């Protein structure tokens, strides 16, 4: 309704309705074509530059909520790229757009030089996805889950069989090949999801919170597996809110806050900017953290103050906190 109380028509919704029935308006078709031409050009550029993932000015709006507000990322071949941020920062939205599960409002995404909107099938062949939620067929066996994946990716039966054995051995699940998925533990299911994502030999592996809900021992086993996959030449795009996970695994880290990348560098360089040591101490209005270049400086500072304190090394969380004023949770 306008100020005078007259009903107003939401043209964007009308256009969406027409698009649903295949009656695209000239305006929308023209805009889409223009956008696609530009993004294909960018993807061609990323092919020549040898960028494995190229994201340019990615924007995603959900009605009135701006989930992504212009994200730019370039991921190099063979690196582990961690995408770090608190819950609701837009990590999963980015992965969903990059893997074609969600439509971007604007911007472009290329995987190994293929545009995810324009060259959908080629782009989808380039990556494997391990989503946050376990999405295996629980009633089927480990082998059956993998066979279905192979068929979805147009693999030949002989190729599927040989890859299944090799990958199950790789993720240490070969003896579970004939077991129903529902009989596996949480960690085994995660490893099976990784094996499934690797079955068709993707160049890029997207891992969306791969260790969420797992106990520390299993988490470390998954980390070792991720490192092993990287040594095989696969590029890994990882989202996590576990600081130590990003610190241990990532070659480069992007901090995401409120839909924006606020910092992008190697974990070491992001932490270096603060110092090497930190003291957490209780103050009147909560906790204060002070950073120091050396341990000696930190200890000297503490002798001057008598409050309760903790001396520790600087971590990525400190860098994130320093940039955004928030903790990664």
């Amino acid at each position, binding site marked *: 309704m306008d100020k005078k109380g007259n009903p107003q028509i939401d043209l964007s919704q009308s256009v969406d309705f027409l698009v*649903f*029935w*295949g009656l695209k308006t000239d305006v929308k078709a023209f805009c889409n074509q223009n956008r696609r031409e530009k993004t294909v050009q960018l993807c061609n550029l990323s092919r020549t530059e040898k960028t494995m993932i190229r994201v340019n000015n990615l924007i995603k709006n959900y009605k009135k909520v701006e989930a992504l507000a212009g994200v730019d990322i370039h991921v190099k071949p063979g690196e582990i790229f961690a995408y770090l941020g608190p819950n609701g920062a837009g990590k999963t939205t980015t992965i969903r757009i990059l*893997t*074609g*599960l*969600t*439509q971007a409002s604007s911007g472009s995404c290329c995987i190994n030089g293929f545009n995810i909107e324009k060259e*959908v*099938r*080629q782009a*989808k*062949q380039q990556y494997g*996805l391990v*989503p946050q*939620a*376990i*999405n*295996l*067929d*629980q*009633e*089927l066996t480990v082998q*059956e889950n993998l*066979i*279905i*994946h192979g*068929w*979805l*990716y*147009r693999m030949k039966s002989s190729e599927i069989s040989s890859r299944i054995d090799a990958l199950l051995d790789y993720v240490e699940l070969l003896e579970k090949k004939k077991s129903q998925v529902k009989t596996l533990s949480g960690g085994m299911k995660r490893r099976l999801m990784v094996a499934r994502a690797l079955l068709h030999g993707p160049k890029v592996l997207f891992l969306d919170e791969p260790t969420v809900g797992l106990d520390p021992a299993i988490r470390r086993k998954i980390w070792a597996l991720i490192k092993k996959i990287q040594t095989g030449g696969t590029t890994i795009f990882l989202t996590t809110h576990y600081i130590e996970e990003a610190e241990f695994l990532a070659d480069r880290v992007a901090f995401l806050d409120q839909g924006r990348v606020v910092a992008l560098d190697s974990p070491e360089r992001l932490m270096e900017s603060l110092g090497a040591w930190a003291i957490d101490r209780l103050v009147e209005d909560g906790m204060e953290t002070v950073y120091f270049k050396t341990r000696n400086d930190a200890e000297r500072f503490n002798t001057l103050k008598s409050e309760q304190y903790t001396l520790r090394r600087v971590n990525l969380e400190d860098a994130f906190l320093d940039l955004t004023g928030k903790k990664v949770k």
Partner: protein
Amino acid sequence: MIHGIIAIYFREMLILRRRLTRQIPSWSISPFLYLTAFSYAVGHGVEIEGHTYMEFLIPGLIAMSSMTQAFAIASEINIARFYWHIFEEFQASPISKVSYVGGEVLAGMTRAMLSILVIMALGFLFGVRLNYGLAFFIALLLNSFVFASLAVALAMVVKSHADQSMLNSFIITPMAFLGGTFFPIDRLPSWAGAFLNLLPLTHASKAIRAACLNQPVSIFSYVLLFAIGVLFFSVAVRCVEKAKD
């Protein structure tokens, strides 16, 4: 495209195979009760168009069961989508939307055909001999095609598994009772008959019954079912695209 259809179909069949021992009794129980209650208790001594009520009822039950079992694929899709999140695996894979819909529709049609075999066997046990020829199977395939396609489309539109049971109550249950399954619709007032003639199940019941009872079949019913099936299939493909967000 074929690879995608096979993958989706193969998955549904693997799941069905695991459940088959539980599924067959569940497919048998309703037709058995209908045959016992309606045929022996209610329809005893009743004759319709020169046939016993049992001969009239079994083709209706076949039409109804092929509809409900084809439509039941919607529940499987919803479980995969909302509970197991497997739909994301299909969305992320390089298969086309037509392949996805094709695979699910074929799976729905297969479920329908298997459930019909159970009714045919029950009919045989109840001593009813009907003509199960080519016209019968074509009508059956078309009916299950229509409702499996509708099921895929609606499964993409609903927002939760609870919505699915609401659709069953509003669409499938009324159609099951009013689509010429248990009684001839020409016995109803003309306005009601005209309305019920708009339902695809009415045409499926007519076509299946005519084929079973060696009566002349109406080509119009076959053409109409095919056209509605194609329409629902294309809507289902559109709905898969819209299910992206």
